[in-house]
Structures are given as C-alpha cells and as structure tokens.
C-alpha cells in the first residue's frame, strides 16, 4: 500500500427515499467520482441504502469539545422550548 492514499472524505447514506442522510464513516479517494464509487463499495454492499453523499472531510466545519459548555448547556434549563403542547398528526412519521 502506498503512503499517499488521497484526501479523506465523509460518507452519508440514506436508507430510504425521504429519510435523512446518516453519517456512516469515511474513506480515501483522489476525486469526487472515485469517492462516490468507493463509498458504494465500502458502505452499501449489504443493502444499507438507496442514496449516497460524499463530502471532503476538510469541508466540514465542526464544533470542538471545548465549545460544549457555551454551545449546548444553556439549553438544559429551557424546557419551555419543547413544543410539547402540540398534537402531532399520526401521518407524520419522522419527527
């Protein structure tokens, strides 16, 4: 195996039409088409999905662990933000 395996890409798989794309892992590839094909071979061989997204890992902007306190904890004591008093109709499947 060579040392240069190309840049890293993140892979998202959609199980069925209408459902969200879920992150399932990453891979190496040198271009977009190669990334898509490698994703197909690595992550959908066992009927895991019907559609794929690949994106260069460096294009994802991520929050860092140090941000956890200031980003997410202020929501802890604000349960009034949950719209629990709405009735969700039965036909809405994926809320």
């Amino acid at each position, binding site marked *: 195996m060579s040392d240069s*395996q190309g840049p890293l890409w993140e892979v998202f798989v959609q199980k069925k039409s209408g459902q969200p794309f879920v992150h399932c892992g990453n891979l*190496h590839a*040198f271009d977009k088409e190669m990334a898509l*094909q*490698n994703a197909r*071979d*690595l992550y959908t061989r066992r009927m895991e999905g019907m559609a794929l997204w690949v994106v260069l890992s460096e294009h994802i902007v991520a929050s860092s662990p140090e941000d956890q306190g200031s980003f997410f904890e202020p929501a802890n004591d604000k349960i009034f933000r949950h719209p629990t008093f709405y009735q969700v109709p039965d036909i809405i499947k994926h809320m």
Partner: protein
Amino acid sequence: MNHYKYILRLADNGLINSQRLTEWTGHGPFLEEDLALTNIALDILGRSKLLLEYAAKIDNTGKTEDTLAYHRGERDFFNTKLVEQPNGDYAQTIIKQVMVDYFDLLHYTELQKSKDETLAGIAAKSVKEITYHYRHTSNWVLRFGLGTEESNQRAQTALDELWRFSGELFYTDETEQWAIEQGIAVNVNLFKDKWTKTITSLFAEANLKLPENTFMQSGGKNGLHTEHLGYILAEMQSLARAFPMQKW
C-alpha cells in the same frame, strides 16, 4: 455438445478473469481500490458459478460446478487469452479489464434476449453489475491516461501489450454459429463496431494510442492458451486436487 461448449466459454472467461483479478486482493494500490477490485472479481465469480452449474446440468454426465472448475486441464478451458494475461502493474490490469467489462456489458445486455431462459436470467442479473464495473474501470483509464507522464506511459505500454488479445473477444466458429442459429447465443459481431468505436474513443480521450497493424491472437476459445493459463490453474486447482473429496 455445442450448447455445453458455448456455456463453458462464457463461464471460463469469467472464472479465469476473476481468478486473475483476485491476485490483487491485499496488494491493491490503496485500501479502497483493493476492496473495489476484489468486489468486482467476486461479482464475476458469482456469474461464472451460475454458468458452470448450468453447464454441468446440460452435460448431464454427473459433473458439478466444482469438477468443472477444479478438475479440467488447460486444453479444456475455453476462456479468451485476454483474461489469462498477467496483471502487470495496475494500469495493465485496468486496460485489460476495461476491454473485458465493455465487451461483457454489450454481450450480456444482448444475452438477456436469449431463448435459453437460464442464460437470459443470468444475463439480466449480471448487466447491472457489469454496468458498474465498466464505470469503475473506464474512470481509471482516464485517470491513468490524463494523470502524469508516467501514468500515461504505463497505460500506453499496457495497451501496446494487450490490444492484440482484443480481437478474440469477437472470434466466432461453428460452435457459436450453431448457438446463434438456435437463438441461444448472441452474435457478438453485431456489436463489434459499437465496441470498437466506444473503446477507441475512450482511449483517445485518455491520450492513448492504439497500436497499428496488430496481428490479433485467438485460440483460447478452443483450448489453445498462452503459457500463463497453466500457472493460474495450478494455483486455483492445487488444493482441490490434493484433497479431492474434501469439504470446507
């Protein structure tokens, strides 16, 4: 007999193609491509398994897919010489495989119309797989051809070496003629022009030149092979021959 031999030609071409490709398993240029090529080889093996099973059934003398794969000698294998050629470097493997993939794509697309329902069924299952294989290998041809000077040179060397084996894909004889008349086989010469045009323009797009005045090799489809097939069979068959009735 003609029916049996025709099916064996299809089966052997896949079996030997697959066996050759699996030599890359664990040695691919990088992990993802290693898996991709092994996956392709496995698809092709799956198709050949069905064809060998069917050949054994037509022959009806107690053979099985295993006896056909593991207990036939070199002269009784009817694959084209192209698929038994050494892998060489990765460019050489890709140049070989793209020619096989596009041929198989056109061939199995047509074979879906065969009057032989088993063959038509196997073809229908295979076409989707082969469509993907061709997409994968034709992409690699462009990467090699348009990559660096070295990658282009490697692909060109491979093409110079392998082009002379491409003619046999379209070789037909009385066996095939009989099967065509029965509506079992596809007349491969009906899509020879399409194959040549598409493959030639793919190579041209990749800045690769076809060698000129090539004398086309043949013989494989009648059991006359290059020296390479013997070594493939030795490796593929040794275990089954050392322990004939063994199960694992």
